[in-house]
């Protein structure tokens, strides 16, 4: 019997729990040469801002031990071109896709949310609540429960689409922050975004990134991500989407085991553009092997 891979994320049901993470999968179409992108549970597209953005100057990526730092600075085509050029092609491809949005101010977030809301085929909005360049006293929205709560409420009231709030791991108490998002009406939380890190060259005495600091991703951060997902799953009753260092089906299953409803695959797409599909097939094979009827029989079954 074929196990049931579909999962519910609040009102949204997706065909399987394997999604691509924002910023690591372009606008989805870039992966069409590799596989049929409609097979994914969802594609979360590159972060969209109101206006097109050039991003940071070169010196944007550095490899670290089992990880990488990026400081892309959200280079993107802007919401208008996304709607005009990308959406029709995603529709043609039959893809389930999610808009990851970002703004310099709460007003901008709201505006981007409003614009993408009119897209019929859009499955959900993921709010990148961990942007480092915002008003509120230089601190990220994502760093305080109040900030997350306000931002979530604001996006929530400006759209009918499911709202996922993507959380920053650079906080003292991820559980409280997730609760704040849930309390303000988020349909799901996705975590983790990247850990803030830095790399320097001890000979030239310069930072390796033009932006000095960047976001750490990849297998190096998996233990932290898994812990945070586990913590949040015990704190909130909305679905949790697990992200961070997932490279294999086993990694993805670990996140489902601690309670995640779905996972997103990020950095792994770079080394292996087939990673998402291999993970999807690996999960299915595992469920068969263990004679489980579906994801729901496995999810959150960690024992002590």
């Amino acid at each position, binding site marked *: 019997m074929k196990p049931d891979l579909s999962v519910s994320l609040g009102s949204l049901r997706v065909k399987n729990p394997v999604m691509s993470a924002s910023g690591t999968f372009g606008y989805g179409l870039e992966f069409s040469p590799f596989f049929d992108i409609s097979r994914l549970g969802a594609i979360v597209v590159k972060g969209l801002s109101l206006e097109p953005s050039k991003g940071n100057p070169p010196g944007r990526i550095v490899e670290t031990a089992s990880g990488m730092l990026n400081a892309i600075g959200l280079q993107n085509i802007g919401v208008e071109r996304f709607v005009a050029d990308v959406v029709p092609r995603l529709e043609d491809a039959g893809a389930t896709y999610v808009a990851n949005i970002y703004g310099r101010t709460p007003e901008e977030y709201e505006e981007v949310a409003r614009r993408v809301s009119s897209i019929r085929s859009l499955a959900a909005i993921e709010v990148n609540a961990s942007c480092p360049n915002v008003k509120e006293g230089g601190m990220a929205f994502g760093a305080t429960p109040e900030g997350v709560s306000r931002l979530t409420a604001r996006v929530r009231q400006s759209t009918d689409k499911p709202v996922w709030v993507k959380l920053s791991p650079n906080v003292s108490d991820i559980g409280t922050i997730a609760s704040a998002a849930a309390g303000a009406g988020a349909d799901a939380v996705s975590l983790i975004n990247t850990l803030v890190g830095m790399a320097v060259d001890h000979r030239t005495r310069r930072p390796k990134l033009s932006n000095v600091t960047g976001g750490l991703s990849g*297998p190096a951060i998996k233990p932290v991500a898994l812990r945070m997902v586990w913590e949040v799953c015990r704190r909130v009753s909305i679905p949790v989407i697990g992200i961070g260092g997932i490279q294999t089906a086993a990694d993805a299953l670990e996140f489902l085991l601690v309670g995640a409803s779905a996972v997103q695959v990020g950095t792994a797409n770079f080394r292996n553009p087939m990673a998402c599909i291999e993970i999807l097939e690996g999960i299915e094979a595992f469920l068969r092997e263990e004679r489980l009827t579906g994801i729901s029989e496995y999810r959150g079954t960690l024992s002590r």
Partner: protein
Amino acid sequence: MHSPNSGMQFVPGKIVRNEAHGEIFYRLEVSVPAPMEFVPGQFAMVSGWPGNDPLLPRPLALFHSRSVPKGKHTVEFVYKVVGRGTALLSGMHPGEPLAMTMPLGRGFDLGKGGRMYWLVGGGVGFSSVFPAAAALAWKKADFEIFLGSRTRRHLPPKELTPVGPAPGLVHLCTEDGTAGYFGRVTDAVRERIKSLTIASASRLTILACGPREMLKDLAQAAEACGAQMQAALENHMACGFGVCWGCVVALRDGEGTAHRRVCKEGPVFDAREVVW
């Protein structure tokens, strides 16, 4: 620049040979399930060493591809060990698996008839210059090769010559004078430009791959004499196929500049567009 990116695939390969050639180069041949066509200057993202450190695949120019009718198909690379990734690669053995995403990027534009090509390779840069030479030789185009290195032993070994009907005129240059022209390859090119007529300079296209300083210097020389130049740039890459936006360089765009991906809009760029 020529762009056949449509054929890009994630290819599981198996190492056929991986041997040191000369003092600093390795030649790597990998068997692949199907013939691999590429435009000179295009590259592959190569990975396969065990563990997650280093994590990212490494870009290597496609050097040669071989296809025996009913036999094995292979692709070849030439590389130099400069850090951990290439060191790990050099330790891998025949029979071991290697994954490649390829062919990637835009290669050299060899399309226009009637032009004269100077192919300039600095250091391991010959790895994308030789395939261009081979292609030009097949087209019976007018071309010459300039190869530069620090010293004689760092020039490409004999057995790694371009494959093709005509070898083309090869100018060797060494900074220490141990072989060929005594000095930098850019100086050799500059000197030779001086002997060109204005008419032939306007027919000249330089195709170059090598250290950034070399490319910059050549771009100035080309600009000054009215020649065209295509430069193969390098940058750190995470994906190699245009999705991470990590490999951008600033290119001229109208009055200002725009960020272009070396892996997608490049690695070969019109030298006049590059902000050197």
